[in-house]
């Protein structure tokens, strides 16, 4: 059935229509809340791109979303639904923080930073390994286990921050500050070093790591033997077994890669911005990653575009708080959910309509 639609409709027009629908419904919500949707949109856009600093913030949010979006996407390719990005990012941040806190006094920065980056990936991978292993070898469903692991991660972090890692003599559950040699350099500082002045923002060099992750995922999924195995298992497990691929191994390895990617959120957040361990720094990026991956159709290029859109929404959303009495940045959460709904759950809704329109248009063409 889908053969009859040209590719540009399938990967261009339908996704765009789904996103348009999501925004239309969000516009209705704004109307119900008693504000003008077009005003809200213009505030969002100005807030996201209107000035130098805003662009930095947008890119900083997008960095996190690239990591979690890629994490969900890699799992998608193997037919796995990793809802655990949130927990993996949380534990990844713990890894980055522990490495940086522990090593920053002993080793130079150019050693500590790579070690901390590796630690965030390793911790994230470890947190995804168990759900993957349990799915492969014990038959427990990865969706349920990753949900449970999100809560376990959260409980573990609360326990560690409140009882173990808290800075002595302090009330709020935060660790001591990481020594500045282990900080991921800010983009505005790096650019100032070579004579370019940009506004201060939390944007840091993690964005380059995110770009590298995109390239890595593209190579892995579409240009490597491993990626072929992953996609084969995702499409047809029986065929994969027949082709000599071990699906159990693929499931476990894919979950580890996925978890590592989500774990890198810790690099951007802990090494790049917060410079200490604290609670709730993941702020829902793991769940937004699902929206990003669905919207970006699990392809790195799509994920970058979707991350930029959601990064802009996150940043523009903060502006809503200042400009309106009746709507807040929580509106962005609604948009996110609607995107998941229309481009994920209702992905097949537009298809028959598009097909019908396409055929109609063609018949007229021929007549």
């Amino acid at each position, binding site marked *: 059935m889908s053969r009859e639609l040209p590719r540009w409709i399938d990967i261009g027009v339908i996704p765009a229509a789904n996103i348009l629908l999501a925004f239309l419904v969000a516009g209705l919500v704004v109307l119900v809340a008693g504000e003008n949707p077009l005003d809200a949109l213009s505030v969002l856009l100005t807030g996201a791109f209107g000035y130098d600093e805003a662009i930095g913030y947008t890119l900083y949010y997008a960095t996190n979303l690239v990591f979690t979006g890629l994490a969900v996407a890699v799992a998608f390719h193997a037919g796995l639904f990793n809802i655990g990005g949130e927990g993996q990012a949380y534990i990844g941040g713990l890894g980055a923080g522990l490495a940086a806190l522990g090593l920053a006094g002993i080793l130079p920065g150019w050693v500590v930073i790579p070690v901390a980056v590796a630690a965030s990936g390793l911790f994230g991978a470890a947190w995804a390994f168990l759900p993957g292993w349990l799915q492969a070898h014990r038959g427990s469903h990865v969706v349920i286990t990753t949900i449970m692991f999100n809560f376990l991660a959260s409980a573990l972090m609360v326990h560690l921050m409140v009882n173990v890692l808290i800075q002595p003599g302090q009330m709020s559950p935060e660790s001591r500050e990481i020594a500045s040699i282990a900080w991921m350099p800010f983009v505005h500082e790096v650019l100032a070093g070579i004579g370019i002045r940009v506004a201060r923002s939390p944007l840091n060099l993690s964005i380059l790591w995110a770009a590298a992750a995109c390239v890595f995922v593209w190579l892995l999924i579409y240009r490597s033997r491993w990626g072929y195995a992953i996609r084969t298992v995702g499409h047809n497990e029986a065929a994969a077994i027949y082709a000599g691929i071990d699906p159990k191994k693929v499931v476990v390895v894919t979950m580890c890669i996925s978890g590592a990617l989500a774990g890198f959120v810790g690099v951007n957040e802990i090494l790049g911005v917060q410079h200490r361990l604290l609670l709730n720094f993941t702020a829902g990026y793991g769940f937004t990653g699902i929206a990003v991956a669905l919207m970006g159709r699990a392809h790195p290029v799509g994920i970058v575009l979707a991350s930029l859109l959601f990064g802009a929404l996150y940043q523009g959303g903060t502006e809503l708080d200042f400009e309106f009495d009746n709507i807040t940045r929580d509106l962005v*959460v609604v948009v996110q959910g609607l995107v*998941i709904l229309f481009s994920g759950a209702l992905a097949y809704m537009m298809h028959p309509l598009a097909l019908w329109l396409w055929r109609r248009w063609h018949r007229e063409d021929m007549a």
Partner: protein
Amino acid sequence: MSETWLLAVLTLDATVRVAAPLILAAMAGLFSERSGVIDIGLEGKMLAGAFAAAATAAVTGSAWLGLLAAVLVSSCLALLHGVACITYRGNQVVSGVAINVVVAGLTIVLGIAWFDQGGQTPALAHNARFAPIELPFADLLRGVPVIGGLYYELISGHNVLVYAALAAVPATWWVVFRTRFGLRLRAVGETPAAVDTAGISVEALRYRAVLITGALCGVAGAYLSTAQSAGFVRDMTAGKGYIALAALIFGKWRPVPAFLACLLFGFLDAVATRLQGVELPGIGQAPVALIQALPYALTVILLAGFIGKAIAPKAIGVPYVKER
């Protein structure tokens, strides 16, 4: 009556209060999942129900109208889940996640727009809430050793929704295992093709199951905002929908074991709350966060097949495509 005995009874009493919404949501999930539709969206439907109940009760002053609104709103979301999963054969997990995320945002946006209290609804007056019900003779029997205290503290003095939650368990069992609808419901979750061959509509059955789920989630939500507390606060479900889902799985998709799992998880929560800030001999500060995480850990261990085996309905998560 000794101190320890009273403490034990009070902890059990708290267990029932905490477990009530879990029981309602777990029974809700049972209908959907037994029919073959995964429901990650229990959390979102409960949250929407809690908001609808509190908002309606705040405006009308009636807890019962609030309950009605909660059931309606939650059922609408269930219908949306049905449209996505049954009619359009979308991914059921994605649909559930979408509902959770939309509701998480929407309740706050609408709460701020309508009530202007930072996402909360106004505190409910006494008669806009479900008040505790004193069962007959509770005061009279209070003096009777053991049984009297138990009756007074534990069995009497809950609100009507707690009793509804407790009644939902045998009701669910009866519907699922003793009625024609229940037989078909279980069949459609195992082998929908057989049900279809018998001339029964798979889609209609699943829609009905999903709607029951929605209604029960609405009651669970109303309990949170108009019985347990006096109003809605942002994210007030705080993972209860997922705990209920865990309890449902822990109870192997059966009403009575799921009910017991809810009680167990409620008990753990009640104990953790009681241990807040308590020094335990040998351990120091009680690890409250870790105790609260036990339900999740137990569910993972169960799913891994280390405490018996949880076998899901066979057709769960698979949209039914009629053969031509």
